[in-house]
Every structure is written in structure tokens, then in C-alpha cells.
């Protein structure tokens, strides 16, 4: 029996060895090349366009020559209010992230550790709320915020953003907490910790990577938000970078200042791309924890 399996395995190995033709060896690599090209080519075009001189805006050369930072200077010129927009984005996305983590962590830990009736219902409710279309929240909230004079305030952007950020964070954190062995708290409690202490002193430090990943994912989601920020503001000084970029106006009438828009896009995107490059493994783990079991 054992020899038979060994025989089969050897045969299989032989078959496999015979099959590794050059085509088979190179196909995945070509595929990988295509994927990288697919993902990065448009992004590359944005970067290249940003570094052209405004006069060369419509040049389709693959490398910007002469190289110029003029577009970036234009973006940060005073009348755009772009710096302020970046700061606003940072305030809104940062507040959303912190609020979400503080509130969501407790819920996630509860969902990961406690057994109680209606747990499935709570999970279903949380995941369902993240599926609601943003506009059906924005329309009624817009009228409410007008009545209570919240238009053009940070809270008018932060509070509605919790609607998508909180389910996302709870979902990710639950997955992370669940991966930690329950024995950790038990050992802590044997040593005399209360459950709350066990959570604070043992689980939280160990869950730090998971919390950090969730923070990045939530921050990116909040940073990229557009509909709420667009609806709840009409003053430039309070608008987020995304809204400001979408409303850049050219110096010459109907012309779209694509050069400076691309430069602004690069400025807004680069921090995210750097974060993605640094923490890619964690982010992938976090994203897939939400979607895949």
C-alpha cells in the first residue's frame, strides 16, 4: 500500500516535471507583469502629468521633459486653499478614526469573546448598516444639520462618516480579537486580573498590530470620503482636500487645470500609497479578514 502511494507520487512528480515547459514557467510572470501594469499605469500617468510644465500639459510623452514642479506650486498657491483642505481632511479622517477605534474596540471585543443571545443579530445589524447607500443618510442629515446650524462644521462631516467607518472597524477588530487565544485572558485572570484589566493590560498590547491595521484601513476610508464632505459644506475654508480638488478652477475660463489637479491628486494619494507600501501585508490581512472568514 505504502509503496503503491509512493509509486503514484513519484509518477505525479515525473508528470509535473515534464509539464514545466518554458511557457508554463513564464506565464505567471507575464501575468504578474500585466497586473502590475494594469494597476500602476494610470497612477504613473497621474504622477508624470503632475511633473510636466503647465505649458506641456497636453504632451503625451512618457517621461516629463523638462521636469517641473510648477503644478505643485500652483496647487499650493493661496487662492486654492489646498493646504487648509489637507488639514481639514486630516482633522476629519483623524477624528473619525479615533472615535471609531475607541467605540468599535469595545464592541469588537464583546463580539469576539462573549457568548450571548442575539449575537448573530447584532453582527447582522452591524454589517447591514454598512451597506446602506450614503445618500439616504445624507439627505435627511443635511436638512437636520441646516436646522441645528451644523453646516460648515467638522462634526457635520465626522458624525455621518461614522456610519461607514464604525461597521468597518468593528468587523476588522472582531476578526483580530478572535484570532487571539482565549487562554491569554484566562491566564491573566488566574493571576488576579479583572476581565477589564485582562483586556487593558494583556489583550490590548497584543492586539496593537490589529488595531493599527484597522486604524489605517479606517483612516483611508474616511480620507477618501466625498459625498458627505461635499454635501455638508459650502465654504472653502472647511472643505476637505477631496472636495477642493474636485472644484479646482482654471485660470483661463472653461479650461480644466488638469496639471494642478494631477499634482493635487499626487499630494493626496502619496501618503496613502506610502502607508500601503509600508503596511501592505497587514492591510491585506485586515481587508481579507473582513471579506473572507
Amino acid at each position, binding site marked *: 500500500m505504502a509503496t503503491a502511494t509512493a509509486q503514484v507520487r513519484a509518477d*505525479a512528480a515525473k*508528470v509535473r516535471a515534464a509539464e514545466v515547459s518554458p511557457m508554463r514557467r513564464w506565464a*505567471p510572470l507575464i*501575468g*504578474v507583469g500585466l*497586473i502590475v501594469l494594469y*494597476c500602476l499605469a494610470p*497612477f504613473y500617468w*497621474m504622477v508624470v*502629468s503632475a511633473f510636466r510644465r503647465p505649458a506641456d500639459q*497636453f504632451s*503625451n510623452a512618457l517621461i516629463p521633459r523638462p521636469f517641473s514642479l510648477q503644478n505643485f506650486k500652483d496647487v499650493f498657491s493661496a487662492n486654492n486653499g489646498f493646504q487648509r483642505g489637507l488639514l481639514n481632511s486630516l482633522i476629519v479622517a483623524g477624528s473619525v478614526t479615533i472615535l471609531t477605534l475607541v467605540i*468599535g474596540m*469595545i*464592541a469588537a471585543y*464583546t*463580539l469576539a469573546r*462573549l*457568548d*450571548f443571545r442575539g449575537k*448573530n443579530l*447584532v*453582527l*447582522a445589524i452591524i*454589517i447591514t*448598516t454598512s*451597506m*446602506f*447607500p450614503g445618500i*439616504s*443618510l*445624507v*439627505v*435627511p442629515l443635511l436638512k437636520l444639520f441646516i436646522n441645528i446650524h451644523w453646516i460648515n462644521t467638522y462634526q457635520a462631516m465626522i*458624525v*455621518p462618516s*461614522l456610519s461607514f467607518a464604525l461597521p468597518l472597524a468593528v468587523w476588522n477588530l*472582531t476578526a483580530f480579537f478572535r484570532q487571539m487565544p482565549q487562554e491569554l485572558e484566562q*491566564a491573566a485572570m488566574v493571576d488576579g486580573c479583572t476581565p477589564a484589566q485582562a483586556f487593558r493590560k494583556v489583550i490590548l498590547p497584543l492586539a496593537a498590530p490589529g488595531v493599527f491595521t484597522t486604524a489605517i484601513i479606517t483612516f483611508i476610508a474616511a*480620507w477618501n470620503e*466625498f*459625498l458627505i464632505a461635499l454635501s455638508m459644506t459650502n465654504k472653502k475654508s472647511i472643505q476637505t482636500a*477631496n472636495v477642493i480638488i474636485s472644484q479646482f478652477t482654471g485660470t483661463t475660463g472653461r479650461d480644466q487645470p*488638469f496639471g494642478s*489637479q*494631477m499634482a*493635487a*491628486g499626487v499630494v493626496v*494619494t502619496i501618503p496613502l*500609497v506610502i502607508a*500601503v507600501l509600508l503596511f*501592505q*501585508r497587514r492591510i*491585506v490581512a485586515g*481587508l*481579507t*479578514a473582513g*471579506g*473572507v*472568514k
Partner: protein
Amino acid sequence: MTATAPVAERPAKEPKQSKRPQRFNEGTGRLAAILLSPTLLVLGLVVVFPIIMALRESLFTSGTKLDANGFIVKGSTFVGLQNYTDIFKGDTGHRFWNAAFNTTFFTVVCVVLETILGVAMALIMHKAFKGRGVVRASILVPWAIPTVVSALLWKWIFQADGIANTLLGTQILWSTEGWQSKASVIIADTWKTAPFIGLLVLAGLQTIPAEVYEAAKVDGASVWKTFTRITLPLVKPALLVAVLFRILDTLRIFDLPFVLVGAHKDSVETLSMLAYDEAFNTRYGPAAAYATLLFIYVAVVAYAFVKILGADVIGEARAKKPGGGGKAKKRRATAPEISAAAATNTGMGA
């Protein structure tokens, strides 16, 4: 001490296991309620409450108008279902059905394209051993770019004398009304989200044990057969969840057509844009009616998807009913999955 219990001692652990849930059940319900209340309260305030408010709002009309006696009426007036019936009438009706068609069209085309491309990407990444780190980093780039920025980027690419026309050798005015502006939205959306589906499917692929494929090979299954009979059924749970999220996401699409093509364009106006436009012009009643209709549409699609295809959205997070030691068993059952996932994550680090 339970952590270090050797395998041989396992039967002796039984009484301990039945004790554990007991301890966790003492007042757990109340504790859980207290701990969950902040989250549920916030979600209630920012999600459930607005939805109900929108429903109420959609039954009112605001603004100045004359009542039956010729008096000027200001503020909100109750109009019952008039906002809804108005939606389906005349020009508004045409605009609504057009937006509903666009929303559905974008959703179907985008999700189909993204799923096919995403699965293809996942298969390639699964096969590739070299360049995994590079491919994973680059696949996250479209995901990380804000939709607004990607919309502007594609608007730039699709300029009359932009790179798209140069490469294609065409002179299409992409941003004008017609099929081309629809196509530009679909291309931009697919570019941004197909890699994301690829990522989720890849995670699903990596949980399939290699033995299954070996067995198929020994049995002489063709590549296509292996794909349709093994790969697809086994990644189906991951794929269904990814597709469901993409469907719901595309049904509420707003940023991309709004920035890429612009407002008030018949070819790309979606239900979200229509509702936004009404609200922007302070016609809150009709806006709320549109928003409510979109909400119902999304809810029906989500419900049908989960019911018909059995997408298990809660998945592993689903709890066994408390008691009966089910929890201990469940925990053990999921442990290999988790370690497989962990292996996945480290495996990709090459």
C-alpha cells in the same frame, strides 16, 4: 493552565469546558448589552434614525406655495405619497427611470467585469511565486487612491486629446453624452475595484489545500475541469461576499460619475446623483423620496442575493447558540482556518 494541557489529558478537560461557558454566561447578556451599547447607539443615531427621518421627510414638501384658498403656505406640508407618485410622472419620471437604468446598468456591467478580472488576477497571483510582494503592493494602489482623484485621473486620460485617444488612435469625445461616457465610468470603476476583488478571491484561493489539486491531477482532471469543479466551488463563499459588497457599493455609485463626467448628464446620472441634485436644490421631499427608493432597491437586492445565492455574510463570526459546549468545538474547528490565513499572510511576504 488549560493552554498547556497535553493531548492525552483531553478527556479530563471535559468538565472544565462545560464550566467555562457557565462562568461566561453569568450576566453575560447584560454585560454584552452594556459593552455593545455605544456602538449600537452611534449606529442607531447615524444610520437608523436618518433612514426613518428620510422616510418621514419623503411624505412632506417644503417651500412656498398657495393652498386651496389662495393663501401662501410656508414650511413643510404633508403631502402623503405625492412625492413618490410625482417621481413616476412626466419629465421627472423619465429622469428617474433613466437614473434607475444607469444605476442598474453600471452595477451589472461593472460587477461582471470586475469579477472576471478579479478572479483572473487572483489565479495569476496564486500561481506566481516571484514578484508577489510587488504585485500585492501595486494591487493596493488603485484601492488606496481616493475615488475623486481616480475620477479626475480618468477624466484626464479621457480628454479629447488625452492619452486614451492617442493610444487607441481614436478621436472620441469621452465626456460627452452617449455610450462613451458610460464606458469611461465603467472603465474607471473596474480599474479601481477589480484588484480588490482579486485580493479577496486570492485569500479564498489560499485556503484551498494543495492535496485537493493533487488528487484532481492524479484523477486526470483537465485544467478547466479543475477550475470549475474545484476552484470555483471552494472560493465561492469568499467570492460571493466580495461580489455582494461590490454590488451594494456600485448601486450607490456617486463620486465617480459626478466628478468624471459631471452632474445633469443623462448618460451617467445615477439614483444617488439624482437624490443629491434634488437635495442640493433644497427640494428635500423629492430628494428623500429618491433616497428612500434607492435604499429599498439596495435592501431588496441584498436580501435577494443572500437568500438566493446563500452568501454567508456573517460567516465565521456567526456564533453557536450559547451552552452545550458548542463554543469549544467551534473554536477548535476554526483554528486551522485561522492558521491557514496566517500562513497565507506570511506566505505572501516573499
